[in-house]
């Protein structure tokens, strides 16, 4: 019984592509690249968390949020606040007029730590906040919108406005948030220096491991009854409602999950890159996150990871050497994904490569059985 349930959760192709991805992330990439490039890849992978969340909410549920950067920011800022407080010991900040508070607060003539910074002295609180705060925030937005049956385009526009408000707020309140530069100059995590090469290796593997764990959760959701209900809702909401399901609760739930995933990604971003700023929250980054999911294929959670890797890698290469071409390429990518390959990389794989893989696998399994 249990075994058959496990089997239905894990179709052969999904398991295969999961294993391939795990090998690529855990073995292949670390062997191929030096720590500088690997750290960059780690940064790209933090966006994959967001993209997986978007596949669940947008691809399966039909809820397109253009404000995922907000959740990415919540996780990122929570982690950055903790690290910043740890870096701003009275000894390190002795030259300030008020030692013991983060440097940007001192520059903005603050003389005491604001109340909402206080709890971030505790690591446990920070970790809990990274999970719980985005969930609460997503719940409020989701409950307000979905209970009133607002969805689709309106939801996209309102989440986008929320991303805009968040950026304006953070930039405007320099003394509390670090303003446009964000929170920078982060040093240690519980006394462990995160800027060394060895720490970056460790963080890369932690990040990759978390990503794989998130994938497992996402796969579970996808194959569960909830996942099927989401697809049913996306295609015909009224029929699901008439069958007696409370549609809005499912939508709120999946939106919260997507928010939590993004937040974890944000926290890992701060740890690996060493800063957090409003440039990762606003309208532009939030829409770019959607394109990662779209390029990967908005129905494929594994595709989302490749999408995030590929688009970010192309962005780095192109904007390093041909900055003028980058925006053209990005714009063309948006249009091409919509017009020509609505199923993204995953769609291409399914049409062209998977049949061959299947054939090969069938042969292989038959041989084994015959023996």
């Amino acid at each position, binding site marked *: 019984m249990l075994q058959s349930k496990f089997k239905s959760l894990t179709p052969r192709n999904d398991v295969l592509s999961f294993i391939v991805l795990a090998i690529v992330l855990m073995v292949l990439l670390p062997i191929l690249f030096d720590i500088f490039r690997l750290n960059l890849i780690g940064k790209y992978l933090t966006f994959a968390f967001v993209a997986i969340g978007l596949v669940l909410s*947008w691809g399966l549920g039909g809820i*397109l949020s*253009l404000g995922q950067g907000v959740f990415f920011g919540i996780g990122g800022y929570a982690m950055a606040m903790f690290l910043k407080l740890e870096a701003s010991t009275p000894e390190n900040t002795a030259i300030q007029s008020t030692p013991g508070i983060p440097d940007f607060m001192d520059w903005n003539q603050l003389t005491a730590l604001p109340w909402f910074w206080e709890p971030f002295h505790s690591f446990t609180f920070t970790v809990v906040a990274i999970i719980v705060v985005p969930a609460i925030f997503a719940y409020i937005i989701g409950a*307000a*919108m979905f209970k*009133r*049956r*607002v969805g*689709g*385009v*309106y939801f*996209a*526009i*309102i989440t*986008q*406005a*929320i991303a*805009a*408000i968040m950026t*304006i*707020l953070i*930039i*405007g309140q320099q003394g509390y948030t670090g303003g446009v530069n964000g929170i920078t100059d982060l040093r240690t995590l519980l006394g462990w220096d995160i800027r060394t090469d060895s720490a970056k290796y460790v963080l890369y593997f932690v990040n990759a491991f978390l990503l794989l764990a998130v994938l497992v959760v996402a796969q579970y959701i996808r194959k569960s009854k909830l996942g099927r209900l989401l697809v049913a809702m996306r295609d015909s909401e009224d029929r699901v409602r008439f069958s007696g399901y409370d549609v809005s609760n499912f939508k709120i739930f999946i939106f919260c999950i997507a928010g939590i995933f993004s937040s974890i990604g944000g926290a890992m971003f701060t740890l690996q890159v060493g800063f957090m700023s409003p440039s990762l929250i606003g*309208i*532009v980054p939030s*829409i770019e996150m*959607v*394109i990662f999911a*779209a390029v990967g294929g908005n129905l494929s959670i594994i595709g989302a990871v490749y999408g995030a890797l590929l688009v970010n890698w192309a962005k780095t290469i192109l904007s390093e050497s041909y900055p*003028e071409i980058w*925006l*053209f390429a*990005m*714009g*063309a*990518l*948006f*249009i091409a*994904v*919509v*017009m020509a390959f*609505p199923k993204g990389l995953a769609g291409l794989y399914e049409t062209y490569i998977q049949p061959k893989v299947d054939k090969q696998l069938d042969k292989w399994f038959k041989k084994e059985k015959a023996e």
Partner: protein
Amino acid sequence: MFADYTWAELGSIFAMQGFSGLILFSVLLLMALGLAIIFGQMGVINMAHGEFMILGAYITYLTSNFFSTFLPELFGIYFFIAIIFAFIGTFLLGAFVEWSLIRHLYKRPLDTLLATWGLSLILQQLYRTIFGTREVGVSLPDWMMGSYSLTDAIEIPINGMIVMGITLFITVGVYLFLQKSRKGKQSRAVVQNRAMAGAVGINTASVDRFTFALGCGIAGIAGATFTMIGSTGPTSGQLYIVDTFLVVVFGGAASLLGTVASAFSIGQAQSILEFFLSGSMAKVLTLLVVIVILMLRPQGLFSLKVRR
């Protein structure tokens, strides 16, 4: 926050901020009118709307350069010719975009959003390549500059009044066009019931193209008008897009009157708050209130009672 001012001072503050609120209202309304047609009427999410406005602004910039070099004696009236050029240019681009992109996506609104965002990136980079990264401004003829003093404490800038005048003119024009003209009636018919409109012999595809292009053309006029009060850069369009969409959604997507009312309330609220709070907090507060109201009343201020 009122305690530090006398009544007379408060009076002129409200009058001055009220007037700058009126200018902001005109700006918001001009931006939103085009989108009210494209998004409100047709349901197409055009994220490149800001870039269409910027195109209008750049056309005005080119026209002003042309007039000051070749026809300096006519420089006083170049602005009105520039507006016409801006309308034609953005109208044509709009028709082309509809033909090449939008018409394939009418049934997939969220995909339209992504595709037009891609279009906006391409246009931005195009502007940057052609006009450079620096912001450009136009020089205004003398009679458009300066300000008019009502009392000692209250001064009214002339270019602000011209912006308001143009807004009034365009709004009334759009309203009359949609309500009275043959094309306008056709486009409303197509929006309300596409199949039926097609059945009575309206060429829905060509009406769609015309309606979309018209919305873009109005965006171009808006952009041309904005050159009077600010400079233009390749990424200026992105700054407007959230405000513009919120104005349309807040007003109630399908209602032109709603768009006017929402632009008015957002403009006034923001500009009066701006005097007492910092600019960014005023904006945050206004947008937050708009979003909260939208969460409580998703259909916006005015909603059409249509059976769907």
